[in-house]
Each structure stands twice: as C-alpha cells, then as structure tokens.
C-alpha cells in the first residue's frame, strides 16, 4: 500500500494548492508586533509601580528632595538666627515644628538638615559607584592576574572596619562636609566594586560580547556599551543601600562629635543637640530630625527592596 493513498498522509507532492493563499502586499503588516515592546527599564518600571510600599518610598523621597530645595525659601525664618526670647516654643502656627534651645526655627533647620544629609548621601553613593564601576569593571573583564591582584586589594580593604577608618580620618583631617564625604568613600566603594566585578564576570562570557569582540570592538567600548548597561540593575539596588548608610554614618558621626560643626544644621547635629532637651519635655526638637532620619532610611530601604524585585529579569512574568 502506498502511503499517499491514505487521505491523511500528505507530503510535499500531494498537498492541494487551494490550501495556500498568496499574500503579496502585507508583508510589512506581518512584521508588526501586536503589543508594544517592553524595554528592560519599562518592564521594571511597570512592576515597580505595582509595589505600593516601594512607590510610597519613592514619593516620600521626591517630596523630601523638593522640600530640601524649596523648604528654606518657603519659611520666613533663617536657619541660624538665634532668638533667645523664643527658646523651646512648642509647634504652633507660627513655628510649625517649634523652636530649639537657641530659639531657632526647627522647620527651617530640618530642611537645611535635609540638604546636608541628602548631599552627603548622594555624593558618597556617586563616588562609590564611579570608583566601583571602574575598579570592578576592569577587574572582572581582564580576569587572570589583574583580577587576582585587584581582588586581593579589595579583600584587604574589606577587612578594615569602615567607621573606625572614617573616625580616624576625621580626627586628623578635621570634620567638614568634604572631609566627611572623602572619609565615607575611602573604603566605601569596595562593596560596589565586588558587585560590578561579579556581574561583569558573568556577562562577559555571553555570545553577544564574543560577537562584538569578533567585530573588532575595542575593550573600553565593550565595557561601556556591552557590559555596563546590563549590570545597572544590581548597581542601582546597591546605590539605594549606600545612600541611607551614608546618611546614617553622617548622623552617627555628628552624634559622637565628628560631624558638621554645630551652627550648621544636619539631622545628626540636630538630634545630638536636643538629646538633653527631651528629658525636660521638649520632645519636638528631637522628634523632627529623628523622624526624618528614620523615614528617609525607611524609604530608601523599601525602595531598594522594590527595585531589587523589579530589576531582576528572572522574576519577569
């Protein structure tokens, strides 16, 4: 029995022509994608938006940045003018957050404090990222002996207790805004470098990197265009953790007497100044800086958690 006598067996010869239709013109239409394509960032944003806690954190931080910029302008009071007749006024319509031990307006000082705390946080994170990307990128991409030496250096620096070095540097350099940032970044970049290196080592073996190598692309360009964009996810997550830890470190340093010097406001300085005050019932002088330190750290933490989930392609549905 021949197979083609069975009507269910078709092959190239006996398929009837009428089964086919000739589609001449709409080739372009066939190439159209039915749904809009989602880039990595759009997809991440879509998922982040669904995370209520992370979005609240983001909104809080945006408001905080806006208030840090415009808050002192909105307020009729100067941050450092001392009005001794108005010591320890409780919060009122006149002074929304009350006044402190020298009669200074806590509302104004809080936003000045936000400026300094956020500036320290973002600058420290920015410097960490820059050094970390360069160090980790080279170490991970070169591999071999270079990687070995660079990683040993990192391992040694990693063992040095972070805050002790910061304290030591500040004792010698003297506390100021720039020395605090320098001290915080001297060993702070190590964590970032480790993350970048791990990512780069993983990605550099992918085929598309091999392809661009075979086109003769130069190494810096491969690192810049091929590798770094794909390591951005973990880098951003790490940044959302670096900023609050720098803010915390600044507050901690102010607290042990190594922060911005006292007439200038930073949240840590304000909290430290008002330690004695709460025992006599003037809770607001501590409450507002403490609230904003804690809430900023909280906002960064939940935003970091949300970003970690949103930026991880493995969790993509």
């Amino acid at each position, binding site marked *: 029995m021949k197979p083609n006598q069975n009507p269910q067996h078709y092959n190239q010869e006996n398929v009837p022509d009428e089964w086919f239709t000739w589609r001449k013109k709409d080739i372009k239409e066939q190439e159209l994608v039915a749904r809009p394509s989602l880039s990595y960032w759009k997809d991440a944003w879509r998922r982040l938006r669904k995370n209520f806690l992370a979005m609240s954190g983001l909104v809080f931080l945006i408001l905080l940045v806006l208030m840090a910029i415009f808050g002192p302008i909105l307020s009729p009071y100067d941050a450092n003018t001392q009005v001794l007749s108005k010591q320890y006024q409780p919060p009122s319509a006149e002074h929304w957050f009350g006044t402190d031990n020298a009669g200074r307006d806590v509302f104004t000082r809080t936003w000045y404090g936000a400026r300094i705390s956020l500036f320290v946080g973002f600058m420290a994170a920015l410097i960490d990222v820059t050094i970390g990307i360069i160090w980790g990128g080279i170490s991970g991409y070169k591999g071999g002996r270079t990687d070995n030496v660079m990683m040993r250096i990192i391992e040694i620096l990693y*063992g*040095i*207790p972070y805050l002790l070095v910061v*304290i030591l540097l500040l004792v010698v350099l003297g506390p100021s805004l720039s020395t605090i940032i320098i001290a915080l970044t001297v060993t702070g970049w190590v964590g970032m470098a480790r993350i970048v290196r791990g990512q780069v080592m993983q990605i550099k073996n992918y085929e598309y990197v091999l392809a661009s190598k075979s086109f003769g692309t130069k190494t810096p360009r491969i690192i810049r265009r091929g590798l770094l964009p794909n390591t951005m996810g973990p880098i951003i997550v790490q940044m959302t953790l670096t900023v609050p830890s720098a803010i915390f470190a600044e507050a901690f340093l102010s607290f042990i007497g190594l922060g911005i010097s006292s007439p200038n406001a930073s949240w840590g300085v304000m909290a430290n100044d008002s330690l004695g005050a709460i025992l006599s019932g003037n*809770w607001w002088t501590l409450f507002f800086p403490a609230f904003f330190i804690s809430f900023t750290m909280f906002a960064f933490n939940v935003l970091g958690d949300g970003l970690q989930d949103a930026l991880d392609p493995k969790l993509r549905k």
Partner: protein
Amino acid sequence: MLKYILKKLLIMVLTLWIIITLTFVLMVSVPGSPFNSEGNSNEIVQQNLERHYNLDKPIHVQYLLYLKSVATLDFGPSIKQPNQTVNDLLGRGFPISAELGLITIIVAVISGIILGILAALRHNGVIDYLAMGIAVLGISIPNFILATLLIQKLAVDWEFFPVATWKSPMHMVLPVLALATGPMAIIARLTRSTMLEVLTQDYIKMARAKGLTPWKIIVKHALRNALMPVITIMGTLLAGIMTGSFVIEQIFAIPGMGKYFVESINHRDFPVIMGTTVFYSAFLIVMLFLVDIAYGILDPRIKVTKKEGE
C-alpha cells in the same frame, strides 16, 4: 583546607599591618605635634610621651618602634589623664563592652532567627508582614534615636527600667534592646529569605513525605542550611554592634571602651584614639578571620570549588 586557612591568615596579617601603618601615618601627619594640643602643659606627661613615641628619632626608626610597641600590646600613656595608660583604659573598659556586645549578639541572633522562621512559615500571612514590618523599622531607625526613645518612654515616663549605667540585669535591658534591634532585623530578613528558598527544595518535600513533624523538619533539616548566610554576615554585624556600642555606651553612661573612645575623640587624646582603633580593628579582623574559617569548615561546598578551581 590548610591552604584556605593560610590564605585568609595572610590577608588578615596584611589588613592589620595596613591599619597600624595608617594610624601611624595619620598621627605623624597631624599638623604640629599631636601631643602639644592646648591645655596640655603637664611637663611630665610631655616627657613620657616623647619618650614613648621616640619623637627625637628619625621617622623610620619611630615607625619600627611603634610597630614593636603594638606587637607587644603596649599602647602608651594617655595625654589627658596623667597617670593612665591606654592599656589601663582598655583593661577597665573592655570587659564591660565585651559583656554588652556578647549579650547583644546572643539576643539579636536568637530573636532574629525566630522572627525569620515565623515569617517564612507564614509566608505572605499576617505574621510575615508583621515580622518584616518590625525588621524594616529596625533597620531604618538609627540605634541612638531608638536609645533616646527607649529612655524617654520606658525609663523616664513609665519608670520600668533604670535610665543609665551598668550595674544589674535591669540596667542592661535598655542598652541591649537599643543595640540589638538593628542586627536582629538584618538576621530576621536574611533567615526569612533563605528559609523560603530552602523550604521549596526537594529534600524538604522528602522529609515531609516521610511524615516528619514540621518542628523536626525545620530544626533538623531546613534551619541548618538556612543559617549559612547568617554566619557569613556575622563579621559585618559584629562591626556594626561594636561601632553602635560607641554611642550606646555614651548615651547610657556605661563605662565601657566605647565611652572612653568617644571621650578621647572629643578631647583629641591621640594615643587613646590610636590605641583603641588598633585594638578594635585587631579584634574585629580576628573575628572576621574566625568567621571565615568557621564558614569553610561548615560549608562543604567551599572545599569542592577550591579543588575544581585549581
């Protein structure tokens, strides 16, 4: 394994050397002499200091002598307190700080693990959200703020606990609570996420299929693997608790090392700053080393990857 230990040992010694050198370089680079700060008119102290630090000798000799004095654990005299050496301060402060640190670690580890397990077992349930809410708050509130809140509420307003000092177990409650909350939160989050991962694995299903009780599954099978990451971050947590104790001891007026350290910073008492920094760093680095070794012994995978790598 021996090679692993030796490598870690070498790195530890290098790190220590860098810290000691750094303290020396920073001390030398302080404008003027660090021992001539204002209010230091005591002739005898001055002579003691110059003798101890060999300031008349060339710099490389100073450096070698400094290395020698650190190696023999002799950190020299204090500037501000004429009859005190740094060793006296360390000898008095360290036992108290060690006690505070040890209690804090124990409290943080136990409560963190319990919180993490509860959260993992009731994944996405009320307990999970509650535990993680506490954890995020614990990470977000700096310990010095928590400490002042605790003093204000529990000690001043309600008078449950004494306000300060370090005498009886009742005195220990507030400082330990303030210091342990942060590490506890970190441990709880970590335990939760690794527990969630471990609980989906086949050998847990197997254990369940055998009919083991949930309690036995967790304690005997899941917890063992879930605790590995907790061990890896112990070093970082120790560092956090130690630096945290600087402010906590200050706030609660506990006469530990941290209090002396902060006082020495405020008085710019350089020998004490240098001595305590080196001592703290050495202590921490040795701890990190022990954690690394413990991890190498506990996790059989480390040996395997080492062999494959070579």
